[in-house]
């Protein structure tokens, strides 16, 4: 075990997969010579050469589209969207192409592609360097979507994504890059796509979340624990396909469910989680299914006052959890 940062987990997952499999390569804006604007691919250019850490022109639809072509040709490309906010020019390639290649060809072709996209806010990134765009792609069958919260999950899920034979959107939280560190095995491992993880056991209330919010929820849970309230924290890890069994089990365990996400509330992943619970185990519930999420405004402002107002934090989450516990 070694303690590494979330960013290093991502970098080492890619590096190890590239060392293991010559078909793996990265492409994107500034991923080559510079090693990525967040340094996720630092050293790759030197180690693997230009063609395997490929600086592309500033054109996301081409980055996705060329990667899709390369994936169909038998490679395992990792395409980087510099910020998740800039994934939208590639929407057509992702939704009309990557997601539908296996299905439309009746299994003749497939598309083993990973698209990495740094997402999320709280870093003074303003409207266009802070977004959580997962709900745009969530609900498009054919895509897998992951959003790890810890270095262990980040590394294991990225390896699983690279080895997956279908397209995976890999949302990595920018604010976790340096602020979150954790133990990671020295040896090769994966975290399977589609499996949620109980990050904390508890019998009073259940909180279901993913991404940066996992850490905020855990902090809030610490706080509540001092007050005698024990929280089960389920980290979805994979957003699509959702781990329905784990969601049901976690909800049943306490009968009181809060779903927390950084993305705005309406139409978010939390809606589906709530709908699943309401459909499957309504009678096991002891309280209405609650959601806590960002307000329904287009994106977070840059000034610190409004960014803070927009973003959730452990205090806001703890308040809502307390309410639920007292229900």
């Amino acid at each position, binding site marked *: 075990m070694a303690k590494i940062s979330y960013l290093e987990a991502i970098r080492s997952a890619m590096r190890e997969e590239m060392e293991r499999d010559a078909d793996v390569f990265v492409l994107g804006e500034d991923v080559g010579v510079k090693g990525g604007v967040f340094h996720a691919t630092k050293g790759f250019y030197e180690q693997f050469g230009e063609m395997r850490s490929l600086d592309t022109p500033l054109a996301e639809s081409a980055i996705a*589209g*060329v990667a899709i*072509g*390369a994936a*169909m040709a038998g490679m395992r490309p990792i395409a980087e969207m510099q910020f998740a906010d800039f994934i939208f020019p590639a929407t057509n390639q992702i939704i009309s192409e990557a997601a*539908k290649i296996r299905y439309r060809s*009746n299994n*003749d072709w497939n598309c083993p592609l990973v698209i990495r996209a740094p997402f999320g806010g709280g870093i003074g990134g303003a409207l266009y360097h802070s977004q959580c765009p997962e709900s745009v792609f969530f609900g498009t069958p054919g895509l897998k979507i992951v959003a790890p919260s810890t270095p262990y999950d980040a590394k294991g899920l990225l390896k699983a994504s690279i080895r997956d034979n279908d397209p995976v959107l890999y949302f990595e939280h920018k604010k976790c890059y340096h602020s979150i560190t954790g133990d990671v095995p020295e040896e090769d491992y994966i975290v399977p796509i589609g499996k949620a993880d109980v990050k904390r056991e508890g019998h009073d209330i259940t909180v279901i979340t993913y991404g940066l919010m996992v850490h905020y929820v855990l902090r809030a849970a610490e706080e509540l624990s001092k007050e005698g309230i024990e929280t089960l924290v389920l980290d979805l890890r994979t957003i699509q396909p959702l781990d329905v069994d784990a969601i049901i089990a976690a909800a049943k365990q306490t009968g009181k469910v809060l779903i927390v996400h950084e993305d705005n509330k309406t139409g978010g992943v939390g809606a589906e989680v709530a709908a699943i619970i309401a459909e499957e185990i309504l009678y096991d519930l002891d309280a209405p299914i609650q959601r806590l999420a960002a307000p329904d405004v287009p994106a977070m402002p840059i000034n610190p006052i409004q960014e803070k107002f927009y973003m959730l934090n452990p205090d806001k989450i703890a308040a809502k959890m307390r309410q639920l516990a007292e229900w």
Partner: protein
Amino acid sequence: MSQSFIEQKNVHHSLGMTDADVIKIYRTMRLARLFDERSELLQRAGKVAFHVSGQGQEAAQAAAAHALDLAHDMFFPYYRDYAFVLGVGCEVSDLMLSLFAKAADPFSGGRQMPGHFGYKAKRIVTGSSPVTTQVPHAAGFALVAKMRNQPSVSFVTFGEGSSNQGDFHEGLNFAGVHKLPVIFFCENNQYAISVPYVKQMACAKVSDRAAGYGFPGVSVDGTDPFEVYAAVKTARERALRGEGPTLIEAQMYRLMPHSTSDDDSQYRSKAEVQAERERDPLPRMLMYMMQTGIWDDVKEAELKAECVKIINAATELADKAPYPVAEDTLKHVYEGD
């Protein structure tokens, strides 16, 4: 509007083509045309729901296919490319099964519209309806060919209207920067559904666009199979030498309405279409072959009979073939399901 290849007797020899090459191209054109006409009939008879025609575009398609390496190149055809896919090894029965949306349709198992090709065994990459998405894919395959040092060229086609999409620009630019082995083949049939060329773009030729990507652009008479063949051969050699892509614009005319759902009298005159029928590549190719002496009425009758037989057999096969099973709708979303 060149009549040149008809007037000349041995264009094909000067290009290093044998008589058999010419006959092969002609056969492909003939087969595609007959398939196309049959499809129109089947649609009108209510046997199939929809057909999108490639009539008028067969010379360019068949000649291009013949200029490529079927063992190494990768193909990204668009929906009018019946002659092209026949030229690279598809059977008429494949087309018919797709037209009838039957389970045995090799392109999609009866899932996609007709004209949506994809057949790994034939090196045809799966395509979709949103136009031009295949252009970056072709660059992606070419990138891999370059990485793996394989003698493979990506050949991708699209209409002139589609050259206005962002993906055209981004795909050509990417290929240009990395000098990838791609042939971008624009079948300029003068219309994007109802919108004529002048309302689609203000440059005189689609090939003018190549200048913005740092590689050659050429325009050829797309009704002249020899011009097309030569251009594709040249582009292929250039690509294999590592010199990068070429944009070829094959100028032609869409003889039929956009699809069986379209009424082209809403936006163009019968007279215009009639005049363009003069350039129909099929009779002109026939005339060339007759004049060159490699063809005669007997051979033509034989070929026609053979082709009709193929079409009839394929139609019957496809008509009788089973549809996919309902529950299979759920299959192949992800690996293993």
